[in-house]
């Protein structure tokens, strides 16, 4: 059985998916890429929006896209550093 992903890993996967999709991704595509249940996905996306990692852009009345903010990019750049610190110090 596959190991359960850590919270940080899930966040990385979501942000990475947005980045890989040219920084504009539909919610359905992001849900598919993140490999989460719809309920968990909603919680994560709300958290990421609240903390300023991603933003929602309305294209039409019923079409919306997610894109990374500067903070989201910064997270992806420093992800390895964060993981190394947690691993090396056993945090």
């Amino acid at each position, binding site marked *: 059985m596959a190991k359960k992903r850590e919270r940080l890993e899930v966040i990385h996967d979501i942000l990475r998916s947005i980045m890989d999709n040219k920084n504009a991704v539909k919610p359905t595509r992001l849900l598919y890429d993140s490999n989460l249940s719809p309920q968990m996905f909603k919680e994560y996306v709300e958290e990421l929006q609240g903390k300023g990692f991603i933003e929602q852009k309305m294209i039409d009345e019923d079409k919306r896209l997610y894109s990374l903010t500067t903070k989201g*990019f910064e997270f992806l750049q420093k992800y390895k550093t964060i993981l190394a610190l947690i691993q090396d110090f056993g*945090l």
Partner: protein
Amino acid sequence: MVGAFFVELLYTLIVVFCCIVIAKHTRCLYNLSFHNGIKYFGEAFVFWGLGYIVRLVYIISLLYINSMNSIVLSIIHLAFEYLLTLGGFFLVYSLIWRLLDEMTSSFLAVRFRILSLHLLALALSLVDMAINTTQLLYIVQLFALGYAGILTYDHWKTSEKKSMKDTFASLYLIALCAAFIGYLVNYIAEFFIYQFPWVRFITYIFTSSVFAIIMYGVLRIVYSTAYCERCCPYTYNKKQEKKHGKKTRKA
């Protein structure tokens, strides 16, 4: 007297500098990750840094301000003990928070645990002040360092990652053991063997080396995995990739 003050000043400056560097970098990473372990680890060094500043103030007060009110002196001493004890508690908490959160991670439970640490540190410092000693401070620091050492050893030993033993984790484990031995020697020298004042000087070297090693570990992680504009995959497009490839081949 001037020599003793110079040693104390130098010791405090080294420790405070290390604490500032560690706290600054961990704060930056916490603001991005919101990882509680990083937060508590950084806070431990904030408390230690502040504790050492207050300690220097206390020493200056003892050495140079003869007419200082004894109540003010006691309050400074209380603040110093409280901050150092809290530093030890937060270091241990940064290693066990995950286990405690598995039991209950509600906002109130987490707040209650943090508040308990503050109250316990304050209570221990008050007891020390009441019996006019620093014995409890030493015992708490020894407990914190010993327990942190055991947890780190356990993490180091059971880590799935084989390369773990080649990373900073090994050096961190050695640093914690060295800090424990340093504190133990200082405790024995201070309370049981009064005729060796130089032991305190050796302990200062030991302790400042431990802080320096931890600072080195944090800096090594921050700079060895730092963002590289040329290599970062997130800013790549095909045009850049071709350019980069050509440059690498030429080099």
